[in-house]
């Protein structure tokens, strides 16, 4: 088995605000990230895929197929968007990096079989960095 990791970038804005909490609680909990007008990041995501090396191609994953899948399901809908306003998933969930990572895994898993019809390669994990200081890794096995 080989694990291949590919990095992608997108830029988006968001606001961290939990509707179940009051204005003051939100300000205390999220600090600057609770600014009502939102703020933005240059996100970096790393998608890790595992599989055996195919003898014909010497590759474990067709990178072009992976790129097209990530572009269509993640980069195009997320890049230069306001995550709270433009993404259905973040109407109910706060767009933290934790929830963003889970949403990326969910989108890739839902569309995986159509892109990769064979049992391998499979999605291993997605890691997401809002800034270069913090990285959140979500295993593909923790999401339905």
């Amino acid at each position, binding site marked *: 088995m080989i*694990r291949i990791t590919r990095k992608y970038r997108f830029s988006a804005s968001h606001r961290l605000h939990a509707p179940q909490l009051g204005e003051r609680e939100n300000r205390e909990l999220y600090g600057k990230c609770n600014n009502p007008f939102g703020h933005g990041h240059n996100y970096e995501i790393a998608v890790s895929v595992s599989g055996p090396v195919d003898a014909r191609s*010497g*590759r*474990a994953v067709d990178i072009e197929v992976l790129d097209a899948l990530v572009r269509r399901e993640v980069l195009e809908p997320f890049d230069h968007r306001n995550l709270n306003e433009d993404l259905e998933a973040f109407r109910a969930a706060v767009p933290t990096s934790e929830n963003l990572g889970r949403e990326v895994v969910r989108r890739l898993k839902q569309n995986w079989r159509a892109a990769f019809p064979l049992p391998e390669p499979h999605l291993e994990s997605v890691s997401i960095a809002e800034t270069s200081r913090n990285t959140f890794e979500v295993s593909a096995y923790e999401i339905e």
Partner: protein
Amino acid sequence: MLITRKVEFSASHVCRNPQLTDEENRALFGAAANPHGHGHNYVLEVTVEGAPDPVTGMVLDLKLLKDILNREVVDAYDHRFLNHEVAPFSQVIPTPENIAIDVWNRLHPHLSGSRTRLHGVRIFETPDLYVDYFGEGA
């Protein structure tokens, strides 16, 4: 405990399966099938697992690790055309997957000691694409 050391080498390669036609190779590998080859600045991260020696406080002598990486990988790979100059790539397509496996095979015999074992190799073909290999069966 895991210890990782990084080295770099620059090399050219062509991704081409000789059993396929030119057209099939272009469809499979795209620009990487250009028969004249193209190059990358590869970055190799080698991770060794072991327990520190109670006397020296070290898992292994990093100078020794550096010498092994230079001798077994960098000297063989750096500024070479992999397909033509580095075994086994006259037979095996030098994709990053196969490079990771070859690097593992080159290093494994030299890093399996009483206190250490090779844990994994990571090859960056570009800053945005890397491959991990943890040995057969892993």
